[in-house]
C-alpha cells in the first residue's frame, strides 16, 4: 500500500535503495530518489561516479543488484518480455554517442521510436503507417532536420545526429526521457541546440527529463533540480541555487576548477609560461 501512498503524493518515479555491483566495484551504492512529474532534473558528478549506471538501470539496460524502481505504482525492476519493452518505450533513452543505426536513413532511425506501437511483422518489413511517418516527420521538423529525412544517419554531423536521437525518443511518446551525457561529444553551438531540444521536450510536452551532465554551468542553466552523485552515492539533492561552490568542490574533487569554469582556476599566464619553459630536473 506504500506504493499507492507515494503515487498519491505525486511522485512519478521512486527509486528505492538501488545498488549495482560490477565485479568488485560498486557503481551505484544504495541510492534512493523520488522524481516528481514534469521536472528537468540534472544528475551531476565526475566521470565514473555512477551517473550512467543509474540512468541505464532506470531504462533496465542494466539490472540493479539490489533495490527497486517504482513508476506510477508499478515495480519495473522485475518486468520481462512485453511489459519490459512497454516500459522502455515510456522511458526513452538518449546516449552520448547517439546510438543511431548509421547506415539507415534518418526517417527510419526516428521510426525506431514507434517500434512498440507497431506490430512486429509490419515493422520488420518497414510498412510504416502514414500516421507513424507523420509523427516522425513532425518530430524532425521541430528540431529543424526534417529536410535530412532521406539521408543516411552516419552522414550527419554530431549535433544533427543527436537531434535525430531526440526525435526518436520523442516519437516513443514517453513519460520520461533519460539523457546520458547528451552533449559530451558536441561543440558549444551544438551543445546549446541539443540542450534546447531537450528543454522543448520538457516544457512543450511536459515530459519529465533526467539528464546526466558533466558541466555544472549547463546543469545550472537548464535544470530545475540537481542531484549530485559521488562514488555511487547521492551527496546533493536540491535546487541549483543551493549548490554552492563549496559543495561543487566536494562533488568534483580535483576536477572542480574545470567544471566551475572559473578564470581563477587557470594558472596565471606568466606562471604557465614559466612552467612550460622549465626543464625537467
Amino acid at each position, binding site marked *: 500500500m506504500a*506504493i499507492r501512498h507515494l503515487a498519491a503524493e505525486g511522485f512519478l518515479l521512486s527509486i528505492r535503495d538501488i545498488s549495482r555491483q560490477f565485479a568488485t566495484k560498486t557503481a551505484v551504492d544504495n541510492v534512493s530518489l523520488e522524481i516528481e512529474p514534469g521536472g528537468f532534473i540534472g544528475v551531476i558528478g565526475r*566521470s*565514473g561516479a555512477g551517473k*550512467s549506471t543509474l540512468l541505464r538501470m532506470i531504462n533496465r539496460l542494466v539490472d540493479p543488484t539490489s533495490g527497486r524502481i517504482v*513508476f*506510477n*505504482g*508499478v*515495480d*519495473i525492476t*522485475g*518486468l520481462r518480455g512485453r*511489459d519490459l519493452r*512497454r*516500459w522502455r*518505450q*515510456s522511458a526513452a533513452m538518449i546516449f552520448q*554517442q547517439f546510438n543511431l543505426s548509421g547506415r539507415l536513413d534518418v*526517417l527510419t532511425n526516428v521510426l525506431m521510436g514507434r517500434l*512498440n506501437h507497431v506490430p512486429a511483422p509490419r515493422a520488420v518489413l518497414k510498412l510504416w503507417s*502514414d*500516421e507513424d*511517418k*507523420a*509523427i516522425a*516527420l*513532425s*518530430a524532425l521538423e521541430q528540431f529543424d532536420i*526534417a529536410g535530412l*529525412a*532521406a539521408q543516411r544517419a552516419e552522414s550527419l554531423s554530431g549535433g544533427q545526429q543527436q537531434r535525430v536521437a531526440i526525435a526518436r525518443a*520523442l*516519437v*516513443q*511518446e*514517453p*513519460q520520461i526521457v533519460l539523457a546520458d551525457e547528451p552533449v559530451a561529444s558536441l561543440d558549444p553551438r551544438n551543445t546549446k541546440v541539443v540542450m534546447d531540444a531537450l528543454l522543448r521536450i520538457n516544457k*512543450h*510536452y*511536459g*515530459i519529465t527529463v533526467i539528464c546526466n551532465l558533466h558541466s555544472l554551468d549547463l546543469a545550472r542553466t537548464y535544470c530545475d533540480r540537481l542531484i549530485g552523485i559521488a562514488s555511487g552515492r547521492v551527496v546533493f539533492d536540491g535546487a541549483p541555487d543551493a549548490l554552492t561552490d563549496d559543495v561543487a568542490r566536494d562533488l568534483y574533487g580535483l576536477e572542480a576548477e574545470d567544471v566551475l569554469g572559473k578564470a581563477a582556476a587557470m594558472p596565471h599566464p606568466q606562471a604557465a609560461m614559466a612552467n612550460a619553459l622549465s626543464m625537467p630536473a
Partner: protein
Amino acid sequence: MNAPSSSSLAGHTASGVNRLREDALRELPHLRTRYADAFRPVTRNGILGVMLAVGLLALFITGFAELGFSFAKMIAGLDQLGKFVILMWPPTPGTMSRFLLFVHALGETVAIAALGTVLAAILALPFGFLAAKNVVANRIVHFLSRRLLDTVRGVDTLIWALLWVNVVGLGPFAGVLAIMCSDTGALGKLFSEAIETANRRPVEGVLSAGGGRLAAVRFGILPQVLPVFASQLLYYFESNTRSATIIGIVGAGGIGLHLSEQIRTLEWQHVAFLVILILATVAVIDALSTRLRSAIIGSRPAAT
C-alpha cells in the same frame, strides 16, 4: 505487486505527449505534400527489389527442375540410407593395430592442413597487400595480382592434389602443396578485402607525422587487419582439415585414403568410426581456434 497495465506504463494517457500525435495528424495533409517521397507507398527501389526477388525465385525453380530434383527419389532412397546406418552400428576400428593406423593417418591429415594453411598464408600476405586498392595505387599491379589470385583460386584443391600427385608422387607432400596452392588464392582475396575495409584515419595519422607509405601500412593498416587475418586463418585451418580428408582419397596422404578404402570394401563400421574420429578432431580444432581468436583480438575497452 500490481501487474503492469498499459495505462500506467505506456504514454498514451499522459496529456502532454498526446500533443505530438495530435499536431502530427492535423498537419498530415501538409506533411504529405512537403515530404511526398517519404509517403510514397512504393518506391522505385522497392519495385526493383520485388522484380529481382521474383526473377531469382524463377531461376531457382528452373534450376531445380533442370537438375532433376525429386522428392519422390529422396523418399524412395530413404530405406537405403536407413540400411547404411544399421550397418554402421556400432562404429569400431576392428583391431588395435588398425586403430593406431587410423590415428596416425589422422595426425597426417591435420599436419597437411596446418602446413598447407601456413604456407598459403605466407604467400597470400604480400598478394593481399598488392591487390588492395588503398595500398597499391598502380592499377596494373592491382589488376595483375587480382587476376593471379583468381586463377589460382579457380582451380579446386582436389584438382591441385591430382596435379601435385603426378608431379611429386603419392603422399602427404602432394597434399600440402595442393592446399597451399588453392588457399593462396582464397586467402589472398580475403586479405585484400580486409585491407580495403580498414579505417583510413590511422593511416592519415602516420602520414601526417611524416611517415612513409611502408610505415603507413605497417602502423596504420596492419594492426587493424591482423585480428581479421588470424580469424580467417584459423577458420581455413579447420576447413582444410576436412579438405585434407577428401584429397587423401586421390592419394595425397592422410585419413582420406583409409576412408575411401573402407567404403570400397563395404566395412561400414570402420567407416563410421573414421567419420566420428574426423568430427571429433574438427570439434577440437574449432574449440582451440575460438580461444586463440579471442586471445589475438584481445578485449577492447567498453565505451564509457
